């Protein structure tokens, strides 16, 4: 039985167990003994004890299956292949033959076994094309693999069915009026809740480990000093067989990222902050009720839309009205385009958070200042803003971290040439663009051209994480200050 059938079986039997347990507890309650828990708890008790052990057994065996198969095939490989190093290729070859053997009829299987006909032709008839003729070792390994696979399937089915039956039986006979079913069911539920809450931690660990593992592989080929202090980005696609690896200097990419983010902040901070001040301090409730959600629409628009907007509307405009008249560039893909559009994107991040922070400044401070005769703008500039400053800085840092990690706008609007230039109308590229470039298309996880993306990724992760931690600490501290 396949894993899906088994899961269905587990679901069916544990549901059956639920009703069985419920029925037994009600029957016992009818005979006079007071129950410790509600009938549903007894039902759930049986359900849990039927399903959980069986699921654990199934999961373990499903995980173990490919490992065991791999080991079986490995043990049947001739020694010259093992030493030559093409083991993974040989294994996938054997796996293909094993798939083919599963598809053929018993007669054909017999013929292949005796060597009467070519296995390749028969497989092709069954829709499994092979790269070459089947060699004898592949055939024996494939047969062994198929035998092992059948054995594992049988073991899995027996083990799961056994666990189901045993769990159901034991839980059922344990049902007594005195059994504290609720407590044990609740313990299981609590464990599940705890497990769910650790997914977030696991994600972080997964990000760090997966990026770090591949990045370390990259650093074993290219030294970190060349990577972090190199001023030339020229990865070159490795031609087969050549050991030429190109240069991987992150500085042009980091400069492009910083330059574009700077432009984004130059657009977003004044607009966002002044809008926030206006909305929080001046605007009538009506204006505020319309303008705040309107600005927040900007945060809900997917970044690919901004990218397209930059590509077809803003880019040509900046090229025709700024870059060409100034004689500084002739492409719509440049730092200003990407920066301006990214700035529009992060306006709501600045304005919403700043708005919250400004409104959180206690009324008493404003009233004190107004009472002393200061005008509203003076109150804002001299009292409210200084009080809100840490929070606003936090908001700006969060927006900056968004800008640094933003991908689609720069992929479409910033260009692909890694330039180390101060001209804002020059094509420039960013860390995220290069991650996308290096990781789309044919992937070989052994070449530095691909692995460099992970080194870039971990750098990006560390930078944004740092900014976020600082920003969130500032915002949090600030909130506590006035609570």
């Amino acid at each position, binding site marked *: 039985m396949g894993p899906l059938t088994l899961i269905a079986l587990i679901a069916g039997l544990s549901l059956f167990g639920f009703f069985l347990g419920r029925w037994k507890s009600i029957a016992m309650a009818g005979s006079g003994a007071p129950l410790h828990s509600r009938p549903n708890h007894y039902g759930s008790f049986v359900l849990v004890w039927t399903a959980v052990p069986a699921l654990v057994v199934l999961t373990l065996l499903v995980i173990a299956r490919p490992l065991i198969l791999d080991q079986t095939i490995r043990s049947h490989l001739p020694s010259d292949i093992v030493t030559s190093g093409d083991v993974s290729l040989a294994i996938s070859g054997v796996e293909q033959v094993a798939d083919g053997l599963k598809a053929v009829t018993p007669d054909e299987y017999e013929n292949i076994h005796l060597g009467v006909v070519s296995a390749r032709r028969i497989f092709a008839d069954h829709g499994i094309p092979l790269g070459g003729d089947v060699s004898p070792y592949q055939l024996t390994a494939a047969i062994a693999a198929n035998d092992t696979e059948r054995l594992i399937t049988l073991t899995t089915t027996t083990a799961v069915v056994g666990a189901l039956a045993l769990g159901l039986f034991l839980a059922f006979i344990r049902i007594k009026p005195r059994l504290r079913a609720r407590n044990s069911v609740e313990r299981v539920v609590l464990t599940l809740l705890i497990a769910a809450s650790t997914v977030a931690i696991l994600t*972080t660990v997964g990000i760090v480990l*997966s990026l770090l593992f591949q990045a370390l592989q990259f650093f074993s080929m290219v030294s970190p000093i060349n990577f972090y202090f190199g001023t030339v980005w020229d990865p070159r696609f490795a031609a087969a067989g050549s050991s030429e690896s190109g240069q991987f200097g992150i500085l042009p990419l980091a400069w492009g990222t910083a330059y574009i983010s700077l432009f984004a902040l130059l657009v977003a901070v*004044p607009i966002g902050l002044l809008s926030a001040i206006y909305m929080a301090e001046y605007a009538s409730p009506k204006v505020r009720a319309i303008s705040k959600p309107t600005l927040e629409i*900007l945060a809900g*628009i997917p970044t690919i839309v901004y990218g397209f907007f930059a590509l077809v509307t803003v880019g040509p405009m900046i090229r025709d009205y700024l870059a060409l008249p100034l004689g500084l560039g002739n492409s719509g893909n440049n730092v200003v385009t990407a920066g301006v559009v990214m700035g529009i994107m992060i306006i709501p991040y600045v304005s919403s958070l700043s708005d919250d922070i400004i409104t959180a400044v206690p009324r008493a401070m404003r009233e004190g200042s107004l009472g002393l005769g200061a005008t509203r703008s003076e109150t804002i500039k001299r009292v409210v803003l200084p009080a809100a400053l840490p929070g606003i800085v936090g908001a700006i840092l969060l927006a900056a971290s968004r800008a640094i*990690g933003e991908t689609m706008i720069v992929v479409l609007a910033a260009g692909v040439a890694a330039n180390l230039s101060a001209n804002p109308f020059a094509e420039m590229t960013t860390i995220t663009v290069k991650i*996308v470039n290096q990781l789309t298309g044919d992937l070989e996880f052994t070449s530095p051209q691909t692995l460099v993306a992970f080194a870039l990724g971990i750098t990006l992760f560390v930078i944004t994480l740092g900014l*976020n931690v600082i920003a969130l600490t500032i915002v949090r501290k600030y909130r506590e200050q006035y609570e």
Partner: protein
Amino acid sequence: MTEASAALPAAQATVVRKIDIGLQRRYRAERRFRAYGIVALSIGIACVVMLFSSIVSRGYTAFEQTRVTLLVDFDPKVIAPNGDRSPDAVMSGDAFRFDELISTALQKTLDIEPDDEDGLYDALDLLSKGSTPMLRKLIADKPSLIGTRSAVDFYATGDVDAFIKGTIHADVPESQRNIKDRHIKLIDRLENTGTMHLAFNTGLFTFGASSRPELAGVGVAAVGSFMMMLVVLTLSLPLGVAGSIYLEEFAPKNRWTDLIEVNINNLAAVPSIVYGMLGLAVFINFMHLPRSASLVGGLVLTLTTLPTIIITTRAALKAVPPSIREAGLGIGASKMQTVFHHVLPLAVPGILTGTIIGLAHALGETAPLLMIGMKAFVVNYPTTPFDPATSLPTQIFMWATEPERAFSERTSAAIMILLAFLLAMNSIAIILRRAFERRW
């Protein structure tokens, strides 16, 4: 003010006048500051308007498409030379024989002489290159057509479509446009007879990827997106809610839960492309799940939305007043019963709102999907989550980089469709919040 100062002694009056001048300056500063705010806010709102008008003005034309209605003679001699009219027989054999049907129909409509080959080729240039397979499919699906004469709608090519819609102008020098003067003559004749006309573009909603703009649509991509959303919903909602219940209701306040808390807030701000790299390294490289499958896309998007869902669910749980919990505990319910029977039902509207907003974010996410190979040329509808699929945003990305005008128009239209989905989801969230919001 001035009247009062006139009554004062001269020395004092100058002081007051000085104050007066200072006050005017300060009031001017006040007005200026206010104006800055209005200008900033207007710029922000202008950006929203510009963004939408730019997309809509480019994209609305794509919802109509140029068709050519030809009266086709379904000649049995051509379609079924050996008399076999079954769908299999129609779909097999020489495909060129269906060209003949179209050519004959064009010759009749445009009065092209049978020996005028150049004229015929010019006329054929106007029709999409996908017309022949389309006709063949039509006959195979409806064998009763054979032997009759009926009108069939064919698609015009993307260039003709652009010409009809006025985006390719006739006053551009002939060498710089794909539509030549001889084509324009034919187009005029077809238009005058009503053969060539604009109709609602159903293909935009049903077709998949295609290198010919007139045959490209977002149908396949939308199905891929939908499958991913299903995966995201089935995984992130239970996981997110369970995790938040533990953190909000059961977790002791210690260093470990503090760490989880900080961690979740940070995860919400990690660049989405990093999640894509995680998916590539873990789901594809390590677990060997298929590339471009909507299952993998859904898994990656689950991880990106999980922090959002946890944060909003915790806020919703926090908003349920402690008196509810105390009442539950007071009448003898266990902690678990209180949470599941009383607190959680009251938090459901908030949780749903958060989930929908999280899903809307996931629907527009592009960068992580590029990492796991969802940028693929997918023509067929995916039927299981393991099939190769694309999503709406990645389809938009692929079209955005196509140079042809017809694709640019379709990109904007696809963006409008995506935005319509997002708008619908967000409106549902707002309506839910309005309908079930409770003030305690």
